[in-house]
């Protein structure tokens, strides 16, 4: 009994456990920390710069900066700015429309090609296709834009007319006037082709990591390749595919040159995807930057800030989606 009492009285407080890292470790830690923090600092500085430059415009326009569509600078006889109004609403709608069309068209194609590359393509065919898709990812977007303008526009216009003829009763496929060129639909198709490589690469990576024991378990139960993919690969890879799609969405929303080439910038909200009017935030900045006066440059910086925040929101949503869909299949 006394022994037990003595023991309980003698229970010490937990000790502090520390270690003194070697000098080489400390130096390496410092280098790595600088590298890790630099991207954060650069991003922060850009956001700060955009906020400061755009502050005046945002103060004047307030919420109407994103709810109104008018983008106008009126000059008096002496060339001084008499009146200016800046509103991004039409560009924001155009940004979303083109990006969503890109996702709807591009992601299924990308997932199918990732499945083909992972589970069907063999040997040299596989190697060739993988490097081709990587090459596509590095392809300059201006060339996609040119190709979209010169080659795709003609045939896409035909598809657009077809969609309008047979599905025109659905409001988004209706058009107020028969102008099918340079529409959000065509911009979305060009963007779809641009995001296919990145979404394919990410999906392929994740499908490739599907645990072999689960694949074998499915086959041992008499599964065909199709039913194995549905029961094992898709649940496992879902989160990664959503993440890849979101990266693609981010790229599609921020894309400038390709959209500028194939989409009319019109300062009017247009939900009708087949109608040749729209624009997106990034292509507006490209269009206006060269000829803008100081006041308008500030407005364009504010537009840049909006685009920046939009990208942040999309990334945050993608994180949530990955966490919701991804964990279940793991």
């Amino acid at each position, binding site marked *: 009994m006394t022994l037990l009492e003595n023991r309980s009285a003698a229970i010490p407080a937990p000790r502090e456990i520390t270690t003194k890292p070697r000098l080489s470790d400390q130096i390496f830690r410092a280098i790595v920390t600088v590298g890790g923090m630099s991207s954060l600092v650069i991003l922060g500085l850009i956001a700060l710069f955009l906020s400061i430059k755009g502050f005046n415009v945002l103060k004047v326009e307030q919420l109407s900066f994103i709810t109104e569509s008018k983008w106008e600078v009126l000059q008096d006889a002496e060339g001084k700015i008499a009146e200016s109004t800046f509103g991004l609403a039409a560009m924001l709608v155009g940004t979303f429309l083109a990006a969503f069309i890109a996702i709807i068209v591009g992601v299924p194609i990308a997932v199918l090609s990732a499945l083909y590359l992972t589970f069907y393509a063999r040997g040299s065919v596989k190697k060739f296709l993988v490097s081709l898709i990587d090459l596509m990812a590095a392809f300059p977007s201006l060339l996609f834009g040119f190709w979209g303008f010169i080659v795709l526009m003609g045939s896409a216009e035909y598809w657009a007319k077809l969609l309008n003829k047979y599905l025109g009763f659905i409001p988004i496929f209706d058009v107020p006037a028969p102008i099918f060129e340079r529409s959000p639909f065509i911009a979305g198709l060009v963007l779809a082709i641009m995001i296919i490589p990145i979404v394919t690469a990410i999906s392929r990576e994740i499908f490739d990591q599907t*645990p072999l*024991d*689960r694949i*074998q*378990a*499915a*086959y*041992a*139960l*008499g*599964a*065909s390749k199709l*039913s*194995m993919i549905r*029961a*094992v690969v898709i*649940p*496992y890879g879902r989160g990664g595919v959503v993440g890849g799609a979101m990266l693609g969405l981010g790229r599609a929303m921020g894309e400038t040159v390709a959209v500028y080439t194939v989409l009319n910038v019109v300062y009017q909200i247009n939900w009708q995807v087949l109608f040749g009017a729209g624009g997106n935030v990034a292509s507006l900045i490209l269009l206006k930057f060269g000829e803008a006066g100081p006041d308008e440059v500030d407005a364009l910086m504010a537009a840049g800030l909006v685009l920046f925040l939009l990208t942040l929101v999309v990334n945050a949503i993608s994180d949530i989606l990955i966490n919701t869909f991804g964990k*279940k*299949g*793991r």
Partner: protein
Amino acid sequence: MQATTPSSLASVANNREQRVPGTNLLGTGLETRGVHAWFGKKHVLSDVSLDFAAGTVTALIGPSGCGKSTYLRTLNRMHEFIPTAALAGEVLLDGQDIYAAGTDVTKIRLKVGMVFQKPNPFPSMTIGENVLSGLKLAQLKKSNTDELLESCLVRAGLWSEVKDRLSEHGGALSGGQQQRLCIARSLAVEPQVLLMDEPCSALDPGSTFRIEETISELAKSMTIVIVTHNMQQAARVSDYTAFFLSDGGPGVMVETAPTSKIFSSPTDKRTEDYVTGRFG
């Protein structure tokens, strides 16, 4: 877990005594004729001929790298999943060569099920869905899936532990329960033969005991081939034992006989050295 009564154990033993492989069994079980296996240029298994009579338990024993797992995987054509894997010889199920041209391999795997070393339930499915997953995977239509679900779990010795939590996910079970879930899953497609590749090597002794009980129960209605490193396990669960060995070259089947004979009076000196623990 219901206890197995001594009388039922005795009757199992009696039943087993009457089954002898290699005696006029063509068309009634699983047999291999001169099976060789390669991975790329490496010859890993040489000339294995064995008969597995319907309703018997056969243990494949031998040191690591002797080709016993490779051999097991040739029996339901899982061998060919490893790139560069090659095979010669014949594997006959009910007298039909399962490697014959034009064979639908998914039908072979329905008849010859498999339980793996590491429990591998599908984590995206519930316990109930896991058991019935084979029906979905092989696109089989079954009425009375509730009955099937219960009978598979009962036969795998898991029903009493999971009957109130069938909609929980399989990953929530312990390792031993997961392995019995995998056994139940392979029973749902009603295989003739069940292959088990070291099914207890990742499990604690209590779980191992339950799985061995399950094997004894299952042996009443199907043929079982089990690879094991545990010689007591081979002695406890099997009717016949085949000893595999590799002397650096391809693995060969040294000796096969009723389990009691392998462990008491093996013919080959190498078998005796292995089962008495002199090497391996």
